[in-house]
């Protein structure tokens, strides 16, 4: 396919042809093209459909502000909806499809909406679809939802990788146009650490799209030279294809670098995009300005463009968007499009200039005081109707119309901290206001200085100012000469008269009529205007349309534009791929793994693992022939209670607490007392939150007069440590206490069961007879002939049990040694399921009971809260509502009929009572099958439970439709007297 609309010049490599396809049709373009420029070069103007009316649309811009030319880029799992053709860099083999149309772009069935437009006015849906009531969800909404959206996702996993990083600089320059380049050059030459970021793949900004000279050379050449010099400076980092998306607090910026989007696929190992968090001591917004159109009837046809874009396609990409061009402008800049195109030999048939007076353009039909009032052409522009100064109208055939309503400084980043832009009369646009982000300056067109000279001057001055703040000496180099044309503009927002629709927000199909209706219905504040009409809520966030919309509203309300104000600018500046924000944290890498010392051994045994926080723990270890998890767990439990079982308990938090005040400290952070604990002993500790609820529990041992080691639950290891540091530093800063976590330093195994001691005697070097190492004993030992370790005689299972610890690197060897030594006793290794079964059989509380909503009293541990001393949580645990009779109490539960299954989460109801809130007695917190007892058992919180032992209730579960008669019993199902412990 020939590039029929390609003309001379431009920054493209004509030596290389790139093949690409749009809606299945193949075309060619060149390196340096965007998808839009290449399509226009091939004479394709129609690229999309609008959201509501499905109007045929082509690009109006040559940049990231594009509302119309949105396509689905790539295919398969890489399909990328809503990609702006105007910024999609062309590569060989690029595939693109139009979207939001059916069956085809040229013929779209839903274009019927356009014929029905008189019904589909702003907010019409708020006033209808209400009758009959059921129809909204069943009929109307499904239809609306089916029509919703623009492009589509593939539903397949994104195959590309994303990365994140962190950069530091003295000066971040946002935008590499004349202002940004001059600033970077000034700061770079001064040796400052500079980052220059630009969303475009070619730095230079408007200089690449203009013919004006800088320093006596074409602006684009000057830009290329500056970029080359900057590239040679080690203190300067050039970041093309990088969009600074947001300004956050204290000089932190979020920027997305499109590392691979200009390639068919990322190179091996390379990310598609990288999210950079940039820490900038000072920053400069040099993001340029965005041209805005003038609204007139049918101003949305393919071929109607922004004048600056029309010019950019000709100058930068060597493309004539049309062969007969009309220009419609209200300001001086629009005339440049006419003169540039004329110089390139494109036929400019008329220049429609809404201003009166002033010099006429030579050699052109320059119609002053005239306006374009309408356009024609079904799928593309074929003519415009012009109303002359004298009121007479003329139809002028043309294939492209360049419209310029003036330029809006890109204030977005400067307003990300909610600084309101201020109205600048001279350019009839909003410019950056006061109180922008601290340390952020603005230069060039972004600051409302629309001339090239103004940009160069501003960029240099702001760079010098920033370096001055930082105490980095810098000198102002000579400023290259460049045009300093005045902005001559006579504001015109929309063309009066006419019955038809004049578009303001092209993607969302918001027209002047809609704004008028909003006003008529008293939606007059800008926020109401936006929310009622959806003005500015499309993928372009109103970059070209918003100001026109509020100008129209200002006119209707009779308020000046500044008083009418703008809506709020929020990140991101342009839409950002979710993948970039997520980086590598996805799939199995969503969060890091924590592996226990016995993990390798357990994996060899074919253990089943379970996520416990970040940890992977052994859930159970199936043996040959076991087909269900219950078989494995029952075996582990029975073997442990009968003989001995081994379990990796390394995940429990361990905190080393030393200092002369360690005991006092523990007395204050635990509800019970520890200062009286004898050296070589351990004790169960109950820790409360200041609000009196139970925070955590565990055993704490005293290894030396001034050294304790505290055990926390696996889940709370981090929060308990944080809390202890708070108590130590903030509440009692003069206590002599030092803390450090030792959770991972020790591999710790529970050895439980009647034969626990006999097994350990084969491993531990010292005498651990009951006399030498009694119940709740703790101390340093050596293992297997000299390896230093620790032994604690504590039990979670209710059996004679120990926890033995060795340095983690020996954990794997120890589990193997314990298993080997246990063979003669038929020892098993058990996982978290068996652990859970045994602790419920014993009536110990764990995660499901330690739910942050329960007090010591609720758990039946009220007596542990000493009132004799002040401790965290003690005072508030005494509030009337928390000590009242009849509150929740921990109880045991067993089915009246042993064959009945129980389920955790079931609620207690009295026998025969109706299932209503008033009868709700509480709930089953934990349920297990007790192989020992041969039926299900559970723990639960029951209102007044301490008074209900021995009574019957129902455990009702509407989720699995069960209703079981249960008996309320003591939570201690096994060995309530604790004889086994002391055995």
């Amino acid at each position, binding site marked *: 396919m020939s590039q029929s609309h390609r003309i001379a010049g431009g920054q493209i490599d004509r030596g290389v042809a790139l093949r690409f396809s749009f809606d299945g049709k193949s075309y060619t373009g060149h390196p340096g093209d965007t998808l839009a420029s290449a399509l226009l070069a091939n004479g394709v103007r129609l690229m999309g459909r609008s959201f509501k009316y499905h109007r045929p649309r082509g690009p109006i811009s040559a940049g990231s502000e594009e509302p119309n030319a949105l396509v689905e880029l790539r295919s398969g799992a890489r399909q990328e909806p809503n990609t702006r053709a105007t910024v999609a860099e062309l590569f060989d083999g690029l595939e693109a499809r139009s979207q939001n149309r059916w069956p085809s772009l040229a013929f779209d069935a839903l274009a019927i909406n356009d014929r029905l437009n008189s019904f589909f006015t702003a907010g019409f849906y708020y006033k209808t679809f209400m009758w009959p009531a059921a129809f909204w969800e069943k009929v109307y909404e499904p239809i609306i939802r089916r029509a919703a959206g623009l492009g589509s996702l593939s539903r397949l996993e994104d195959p590309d990788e994303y990365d994140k990083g962190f950069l530091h600089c003295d000066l971040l320059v946002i935008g590499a146009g004349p202002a940004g380049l001059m600033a970077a050059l000034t700061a770079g030459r001064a040796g400052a650490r500079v980052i220059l970021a630009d969303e475009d793949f070619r730095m230079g900004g408007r200089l690449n799209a203009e013919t004006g000279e800088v320093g006596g050379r074409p602006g684009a050449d000057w830009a290329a030279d500056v970029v080359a010099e900057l590239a040679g400076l080690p203190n300067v980092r050039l970041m093309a294809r990088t969009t600074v998306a947001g300004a956050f607090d204290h000089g932190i910026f979020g920027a997305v670098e499109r590392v691979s989007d200009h390639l068919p696929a990322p190179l091996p190992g390379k990310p598609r995009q990288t999210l950079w968090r940039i*820490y900038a001591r000072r920053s400069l917004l040099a993001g340029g300005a965005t041209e805005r159109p003038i609204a007139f009837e049918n101003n949305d046809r393919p071929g109607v463009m922004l004048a600056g874009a029309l010019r950019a396609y000709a100058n930068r990409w060597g493309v004539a968007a049309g062969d007969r061009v009309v220009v419609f402008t209200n300001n001086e800049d629009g005339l440049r499009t006419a003169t540039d195109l004329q110089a390139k030999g494109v036929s400019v048939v008329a220049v429609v200039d809404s201003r009166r007076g002033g010099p006429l353009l030579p050699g052109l039909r320059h119609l002053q005081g005239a306006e374009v009032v309408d356009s024609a052409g079904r799928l593309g522009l074929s003519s415009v109707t012009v109303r002359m100064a004298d009121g007479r109208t003329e139809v002028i055939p043309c294939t492209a119309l360049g419209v310029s309503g003036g330029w809006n400084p890109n204030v977005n980043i400067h307003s990300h901290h909610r600084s309101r832009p201020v109205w600048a009369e001279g350019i009839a646009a909003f410019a950056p206001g006061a109180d922008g982000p601290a340390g952020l300056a603005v230069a060039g067109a972004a600051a409302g200085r629309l001339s090239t000279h103004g940009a160069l001057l501003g960029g240099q001055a702001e760079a010098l100012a920033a370096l001055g703040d930082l105490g980095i000496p810098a000198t102002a180099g000579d400023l290259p000469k460049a045009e300093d044309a005045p902005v001559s503009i006579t504001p015109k927002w929309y063309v009066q008269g006419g019955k038809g629709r004049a578009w303001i927000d092209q993607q969302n199909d918001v027209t002047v009529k809609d704004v008028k209706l909003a006003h008529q219905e008293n939606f007059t504040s800008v926020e109401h205007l936006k929310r009622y009409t959806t003005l500015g809520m499309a993928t372009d966030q109103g970059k070209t349309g918003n100001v026109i919309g509020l100008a129209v509203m200002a006119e209707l309300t009779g308020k000046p534009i500044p008083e009418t104000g703008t809506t709020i600018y929020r990140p991101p500046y342009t839409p950002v791929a979710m993948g970039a924000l997520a980086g590598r944290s996805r799939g199995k890498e969503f969060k890091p793994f924590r592996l226990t010392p016995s993990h390798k051994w357990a994996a060899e045994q074919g253990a089943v693992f379970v996520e416990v926080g970040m940890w992977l723990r052994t859930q159970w270890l199936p043996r040959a022939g076991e087909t269900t998890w219950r078989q494995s767990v029952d075996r582990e439990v029975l073997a442990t209670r009968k003989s001995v079982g081994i379990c990796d308990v390394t995940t429990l938090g361990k905190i080393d607490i030393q200092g002369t005040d360690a005991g006092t400290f523990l007395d204050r952070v635990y509800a019970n007392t520890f200062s009286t604990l004898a050296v070589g002993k351990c004790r169960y500790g109950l820790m409360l939150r200041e609000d009196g609820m139970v925070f955590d529990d565990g055993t704490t041992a005293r290894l030396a007069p001034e050294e304790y080691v505290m055990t926390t639950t696996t889940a709370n290891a981090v929060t308990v440590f944080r809390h202890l540091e708070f108590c130590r*530093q*903030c509440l*009692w800063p*003069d206590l002599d206490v030092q803390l450090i976590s030792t959770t991972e330093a020790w591999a710790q195994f529970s050895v439980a069961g009647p034969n626990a001691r006999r097994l350990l005697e084969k491993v531990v070097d010292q005498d651990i007879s009951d006399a030498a190492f009694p119940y709740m004993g703790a101390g340093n030992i050596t293992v297997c002939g000299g390896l230093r370790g620790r032994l604690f005689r504590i039990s979670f299972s209710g059996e004679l049990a120990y926890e033995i610890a060795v340095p983690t690197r020996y954990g794997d060897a120890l589990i193997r040694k314990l298993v080997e030594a246990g063979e003669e006793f038929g020892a098993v290794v058990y996982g978290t399921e068996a652990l859970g079964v045994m602790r419920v059989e014993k009536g110990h509380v764990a995660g499901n009971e330690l739910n942050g909503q329960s007090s010591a009293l609720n758990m039946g541990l009220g007596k542990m809260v000493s009132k004799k001393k002040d401790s965290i949580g003690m*005072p*508030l645990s*005494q509030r009337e509502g928390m000590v009242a009779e009849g509150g929740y109490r921990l109880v045991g539960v067993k089915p009246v009929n042993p064959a009945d299954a129980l389920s955790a989460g079931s609620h207690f109801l009295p026998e025969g009572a109706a299932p209503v809130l008033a009868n709700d007695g509480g709930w089953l917190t934990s349920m297990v099958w007790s192989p020992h007892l041969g039926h299900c058992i559970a723990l639960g919180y029951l209102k007044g439970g301490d008074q209900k032992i021995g009574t019957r209730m129902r455990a009702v579960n509407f989720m699995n439709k069960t209703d079981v008669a249960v008996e309320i019993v003591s939570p201690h199902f096994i060995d309530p007297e604790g004889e086994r412990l002391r055995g």
Partner: protein
Amino acid sequence: MLINHPILGPRDAQEFVYLGDANLLHRPDGLAEGAIAAFHDYAYQRGNPAGEHRELWYHEQGDRSWLVVTRNTVTHEILKVELARDVARREGRSR
């Protein structure tokens, strides 16, 4: 946000854990008369100013210092950062 750590200099706020109003330094005496009322005020009532706020941050992914940060809750500007331990001592906390 960046918190200018008195020992380590500017550190990303993401390394810290936020607790809240620095009045939490002033834990009442749990054995005193009217302790429940005092603790109710201490644990639950907040000034919650729109403006300067003295608040506790914990450098969990750093040196484990608790800091008292004076920050404007409207602009997020940070005006002062001190070690909580120093503030606590200065304001009468000891043992």
